[in-house]
Each structure stands twice: as C-alpha cells, then as structure tokens.
C-alpha cells in the first residue's frame, strides 16, 4: 500500500514538474547591470555613425512548447542613446532627429512568431510586431535567436532561483519611415539604420 502511495506521489510530482516546465514563463528585461543594450549603425558613403542604448526594459511571456503564443514588448529609453561625439549626441536627441524630450520610448510589441526552429535550448524564429520610434508605429518582421538558460538566474542575482532568456536580433529600419530628419542627405547620414539587440531577461521561480 505504502509502495503504491509512493509511486502515485512520484508519478504526480513528475507530471506536475513536466507541466510546470511546459507552462508559459514571463521574463523581465529590466537590467541594472547595464548588459542589455541595442546598438545602431548608419553606414553612409561619407560618414559612419554608430552608437548604443542601454535603457532596456519590458516583459516577454514565452512557452517553448508553444512558441507561436509568445507575447510581450521590449522598450528602450530613447534618452539613453549614446554616441561618442557630444555635439552629434545633442543633435541626435534634438527635435529634428529623435526628439527624445517628447518621444522618450522606442518600443517593439511582439504580436506573432513564425518559422520557429529549435536546436536544444537555442531557438530561432521570425517575430512580427509593431515597432514604434519617434511617435511613428510600423509593423516589422525581424529574425530572432532565443536561448534559454535554465537555472542561471542565481548566477546573476545570488539567492534568486530562476531562468534567464537571451534574445539576439539584427534588423534594419529606414530613417525616412519614421520621419527622422528626412531632409538630411543620405550620402552623409544613411537612410538605413542597422539595429542589433542583445538582451537577457530574468524569470524568477515563485
């Protein structure tokens, strides 16, 4: 009887554990360490401009058993955009360019995930969603690679058990699509902005 009870308890525990691992997980991308960042590159024939932004936040809910149900949003504080030249930085934040006083957020809202491929804990997919920059919202599709790091949260936040999710993406948008100083000559400031996103989110265990 005791043996049967133990078997039932063990089976139930295993069942719950597998259900728990299949359940959707929410990852928080706010990062005090400053690791999460986006870089941007405008490579024009006469000038190359590059910089970074590290004010990343947002939440993504993902179920690796059902990745197409992934939802969430990633935000970047536009005021954290940085380039090495102070005059260029001032212009970039100014009203002709990004107008960060009025448009403090750069946002990507994830709406659909397709072409999902898995290789162990590494997943790749195409994500479609609304990208909002300088008050203009456009639907874009971007390639992403997602790596789940099970149980690695305690290494980042000692004393906190949980998982980490690393998202990487590289995509290109057009400056003219978002009304960013459309008068600026494209031989000096490229119309194409290559954005690279490298972020990690935390999902503490309750």
């Amino acid at each position, binding site marked *: 009887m005791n043996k049967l009870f133990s078997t039932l308890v063990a089976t139930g525990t295993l069942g719950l554990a597998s259900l728990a691992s299949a359940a959707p997980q929410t990852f928080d991308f706010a990062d005090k360490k400053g690791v999460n960042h986006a870089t941007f590159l405008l490579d024009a024939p006469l000038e190359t401009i590059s910089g970074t932004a590290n004010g990343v936040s947002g939440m993504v809910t993902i179920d690796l058993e059902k990745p197409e149900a992934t939802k969430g949003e990633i935000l970047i504080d536009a005021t954290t955009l940085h380039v090495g*030249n102070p005059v260029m930085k001032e212009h970039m934040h100014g009203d002709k360019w990004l107008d960060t006083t009025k448009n403090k957020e750069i946002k990507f809202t994830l709406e659909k995930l397709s072409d999902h491929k898995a290789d162990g804990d590494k997943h790749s997919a195409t994500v479609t969603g609304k990208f909002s920059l300088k008050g203009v919202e456009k639907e874009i599709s971007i390639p992403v690679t997602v790596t789940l790091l099970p149980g690695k949260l305690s290494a980042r936040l000692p004393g906190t058990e949980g998982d980490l999710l690393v998202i990487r993406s590289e995509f290109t948008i057009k400056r003219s699509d978002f009304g960013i100083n459309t008068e600026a000559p494209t031989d000096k400031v490229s119309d194409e902005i290559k954005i690279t996103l490298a972020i990690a989110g935390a999902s503490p265990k309750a």
Partner: protein
Amino acid sequence: MRRYLFFTSALLALGTTTFWALKGAHTGWSQTSVKTEQLDDITGLSFPVYQDKFVPGVDFLLAAFVVAGLLAVVALFFRKKPL
C-alpha cells in the same frame, strides 16, 4: 615678428598632427567618450562600456590647421627684416 608667427604656425600644425597621430589618428569626429566591450560570462552577451576619454578627430585637426593658416597669413603682413 614675421618669423615668430611663421614658427608658431608651423609648430601648431606639426604639434597638432603629432598629437592626433599619437591619439590613434581617428578619422571620424572627435570623441569625448570611448566605447570598450565587456563580456557577461553568464549570458555570453558582450556589452558596451563607455569611458570618458578625449580622442581628437579630423575636426580637431582641421581647426588647428585653420588657426595655423591664419597665423601664417597674419605673418605675411609683417615686413621682412632687411638683411
């Protein structure tokens, strides 16, 4: 005075070029912060860290050449000393 101004002009141009070359001969705009990459061992992500550092660019070089050129032009207004 003429000779002194020519000498200052040449010294300024040469000194600035040497300073620019020693600071990395950066062909872009001058920078007041420099990016270095660091690796986060846990996630494997490399991330940028900025340090305050002045790196002279071509604008710095150009400004020095303009001042040196102006000094040379001013020098032309002074008479040559008779031998």
